[in-house]
């Protein structure tokens, strides 16, 4: 277990989203999104403007060329001049100086409502969100009332009652708007309350406040910062309006609202007066809003159906593909390109990812196989062996940073050469994907009918009635008898098995000839798994589909597979007809997978399994990659790469000791201890 200290990217579980490699500490997508945002010019401009406004307001005393209150009655309503760069107002006061002095008090005062809203909304929201029940209902009621209060009216009333006391008015405003913060915190708390690690802490007897501070607050922080920012820009605008009305701020002191008010009185005789203050105000409010909305966009939003969002398709540069596949060894699996009986041929497929250092790291290394019409090929192996990447590469759906080389031919057509647009057409209509997480592949916001309908329309077109008929037909095809009512439902109303049936219907909508299924039943119960496997088999028989199925369960392979490609560390280590593979594996790794099945195991006797873990791509040795975990390894195994060797007419194995393995199997079955 020395491999525990590995970088993040090599240790994905089944279907996990990938963590960025090389980053020691996860900071969530929020921090990453912020960092990305800082590279966008518009954001930088907005941010620059806000900083400029803040700095110049702070330094107004130093920067302003004149006293903002000094009157020069000879130069009233003067235009820009050498003395008065932006001109003067009706009392001959310098406009530039007044603008410089007039922002600070607004910017400061706008902080008060934000602070008040935080102080009220965060603790209360967290508390009632966590405990729920009556406290929650009461707090929610109060907030509903707050939302119904017209803020402006109340603040105006307060201003009358308190004789224009600005701090008081801003505090009241803060109380009224605290509902938004409260709602947000409560919702995030409710969402994190049911996280498993929170449950684990509760089971350990950790106190409530410790849990809130330690496990829940960090989850709320991102949205909270965003919300605070939006609140601030709202408060800023609100206070500017107040000062325009002559409320809250000392009428003697300049403030931006006041300046606008002054200018509006001279719109007829001196329109210039409005220009500088108007521009400054618009720019500031626009910058604040833009920043706030950009922040908002960094928060996770609803996921879209994966099938409908083709990612970019980078091409693997030759230097990245070179040197990974030994020369002069084409695998026998390759068939003639134009053979219609063999719709999918993968040859010497290499999938690489960009490393942080700028190089390429192969994760799939020279994989070849062919799938016949009406036949199922299973890709088998532990997590991290490259099964998923192989499957995704055939569909041109590699994640960001990944690239494929070699050859993937669909009905004789080379897919790796296609542009993303061409590939998008192929995907769905000739080759389709069924993913492991049916719920993740469905859009929670749309009904089954509308999602299926979209795909049907895309591939076939037709009138509304035709599309509808086809949707129901597809649902019945995947064994859903009450198609009408299922079509109306939303993903969250479906059970896992039902959702997977819908996903299969989605994949079939374009009538593909090849179906790629990545662990389609791993997330399901055995009973549902059996049903889905039966469904896939019957679809395959009626539609003549070629199926590529990724799984780590040799039971599933036995059930549905015709041919199995066992993968280890990015390579196919054994390729054989399923019956033969399971009866007598010819690679020690296949044997290890078989031994790990608890099927015939006896209680109390440890399962004979493979020790250790799959090596990370960067740790692949230059010899047999399984050697470190292989019980049969000898020195000869460490002398160089092991090629795929023919062990029988239709079987290959990447092992030099297959005879030894066969002998040990013999001994095991005859009962003689080896």
């Amino acid at each position: 277990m020395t491999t525990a200290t590995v970088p993040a990217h090599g240790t994905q579980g089944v279907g996990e989203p990938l963590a960025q490699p090389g980053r020691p500490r996860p900071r969530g997508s929020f921090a990453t999104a912020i960092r990305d945002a800082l590279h966008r010019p518009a954001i930088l401009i907005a941010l620059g403007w806000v900083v400029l406004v803040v700095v110049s307001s702070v330094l107004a005393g130093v920067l302003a060329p004149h006293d903002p209150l000094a009157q020069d009655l000879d130069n009233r309503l003067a235009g820009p001049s050498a003395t008065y760069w932006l001109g003067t107002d009706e009392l001959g006061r310098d406009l530039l100086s007044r603008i410089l002095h007039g922002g600070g008090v607004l910017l400061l005062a706008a902080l008060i409502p934000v602070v008040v809203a935080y102080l009220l909304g965060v603790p209360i929201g967290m508390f009632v969100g966590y405990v729920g029940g009556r406290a929650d209902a009461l707090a929610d009621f109060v907030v509903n009332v707050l939302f119904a209060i017209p803020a402006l009216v109340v603040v105006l009333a307060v201003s009358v009652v308190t004789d224009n006391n600005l701090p008081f008015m801003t505090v009241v405003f803060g109380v009224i708007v605290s509902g938004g913060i409260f709602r947000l915190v409560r919702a995030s708390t409710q969402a994190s309350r049911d996280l498993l690690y929170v449950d684990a802490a509760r089971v350990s007897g950790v106190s409530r406040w410790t849990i809130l501070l330690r496990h829940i607050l960090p989850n709320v922080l991102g949205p909270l910062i965003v919300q605070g920012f939006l609140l601030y820009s709202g408060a800023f605008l609100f206070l500017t309006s107040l000062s325009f009305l002559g409320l809250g701020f000392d009428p003697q002191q300049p403030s931006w609202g006041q300046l606008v008010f002054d200018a509006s009185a001279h719109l007829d005789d001196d329109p210039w007066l409005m220009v500088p203050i108007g521009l400054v105000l618009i720019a500031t409010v626009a910058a604040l809003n833009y920043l706030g909305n950009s922040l908002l966009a960094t928060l996770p939003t609803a996921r879209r159906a994966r099938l409908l969002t083709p990612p970019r398709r980078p091409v693997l540069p030759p230097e990245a593909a070179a040197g990974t596949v030994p020369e002069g060894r084409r695998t026998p699996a390759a068939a003639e390109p134009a053979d219609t009986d063999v719709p999918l041929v993968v040859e010497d497929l290499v999938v690489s990812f960009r490393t942080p250092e700028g190089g390429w790291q192969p994760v799939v290394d020279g994989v070849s196989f062919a799938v016949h019409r009406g036949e199922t090929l299973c890709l088998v192996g532990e997590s991290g062996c490259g099964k998923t990447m192989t499957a995704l590469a055939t569909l041109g759906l590699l994640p960001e940073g990944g690239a494929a080389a070699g050859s993937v031919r669909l009905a004789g057509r080379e897919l790796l050469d296609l542009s993303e647009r061409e590939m998008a057409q192929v995907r769905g209509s000739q080759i389709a994907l069924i993913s492991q997480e049916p719920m993740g592949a469905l859009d929670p916001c749309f009904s089954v009918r509308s999602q299926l309908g979209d795909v049907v329309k895309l591939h076939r077109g037709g009138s509304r009635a035709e599309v509808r008929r086809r949707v129901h037909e597809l649902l019945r095809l995947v064994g859903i008898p009450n198609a009408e009512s299922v079509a109306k439902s939303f993903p969250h109303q479906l059970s896992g098995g039902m959702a997977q049936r819908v996903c299969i219907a989605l994949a079939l909508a374009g009538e593909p000839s090849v179906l790629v299924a990545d662990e389609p039943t791993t997330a399901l119960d055995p009973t549902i798994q059996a049903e889905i496997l039966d469904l896939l088999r019957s679809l395959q028989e009626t539609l003549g589909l070629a199926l590529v199925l990724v799984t780590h369960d040799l039971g599933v392979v036995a059930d549905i597979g015709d041919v199995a490609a066992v993968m280890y560390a990015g390579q196919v280590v054994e390729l054989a007809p399923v019956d033969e593979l399971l009866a007598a594996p010819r690679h020690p790794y296949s044997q290890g997978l078989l031994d790990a099945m608890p099927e015939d195991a006896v209680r109390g006797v440890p399962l004979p399994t493979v020790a250790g873990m799959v090596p990370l791509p960067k740790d692949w040795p230059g010899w047999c990659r399984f050697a470190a975990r292989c019980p049969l390894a000898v020195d000869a195994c460490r002398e160089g790469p092991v090629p795929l060797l023919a062990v029988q007419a239709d079987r290959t194995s990447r092992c030099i000791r297959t005879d030894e393995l066969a002998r040990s199997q013999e001994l095991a079955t005859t009962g003689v201890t080896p």
Partner: protein
Amino acid sequence: MSSAQSSAPSTARHAVPETPLLTVTDLRVDYKLPGWRTPPVKAVDGVSFTLAEHETLGLVGESGSGKSTIGRALLGLAPISGGQVVLNGHDITEAKAGDRKHVASDLQVVFQDPYGSLNPSRTVGKTLAEPLEAAAGVDTRTALEEIRSLLAKVRLPEDAADRYPNAFSGGQRQRIAIARALAINPKLIVCDEAISALDVVTQAQVLNLLGELQRETGVAFLFIAHNLPVVSYFSDRVLVLYRGRIMESGPAATIHARPAHPYSQALRAAVPVPNAVEQRVLRRQRQEVVRVTTAQAKPAPEEGCPFAPRCPHVADVCWTKRPIDAPFEDRTVACHVFDAASGHPQAGGAAALTAGELAPTAG
């Protein structure tokens, strides 16, 4: 009412001590649904069982059968609406998670999802220190010692303590979760689908680890999973659950080898075996042991047998009358066929049903 403890043969065979570690009597958990007229969902519907020290009791069933809810109810994470839970002589029915420090030292948990069950922003060391701090107010030095020995126990390197969960694979994270559960030497660990999200090799490694730890520490397991072969391999006794009720209970080995209840048979036939020839037979079998797919099944009757919509042996009585826990060999089976007095046309055909030789009914 189901009661595994009343199944005398099983008690005799497995020598359950006088006072069991855990006694659950007629446990009920109802979940209220939104809408004031929708009836509550009976997630757990009158379940009784006992669990001895050092014992492993398996709970098996498909999702929605209530197995996880039973575990969560014991842990104080699900609302108990009826029945009683006695752990180590203390009635903990009312002890909600959060105010159960005294329970925490006896009862811990390992969850299914190795990714969700560790806080991604806290180091492994901090995660492991948490139960130590909460339970005993251990000082930092002793906590560090403890953490080191915990990591060694689950075969992880020492420096794992300074890393964040994202540096570990699913199997390794599950080891961390196991270490957290072991931290305060509990008497019972609820393993809620603890191996279901792992691939076969990792699953075998974690199962072996759990077995070793049980031999070393004598901890008892409530082992919850949906895969009958895995559960029977790892457990002494097994409860087969369906829709919140116990369908069959008895020794793991017999239930695995010769499941008696029609639902247990369906569950058994559903898990494919890694042998192409045997699997072809099993595949045919699995189509015989259920009448319809889950997608086609009618809703289960309010009273009566919950498996009636899918059962090949269903008769009129199954739609109206709830089966009793009928004793059969060394187990109990909640099916009318096993109860001679039930009025089921095939009543008395228990042996034939168990042998798979009973013809399906016309229903």
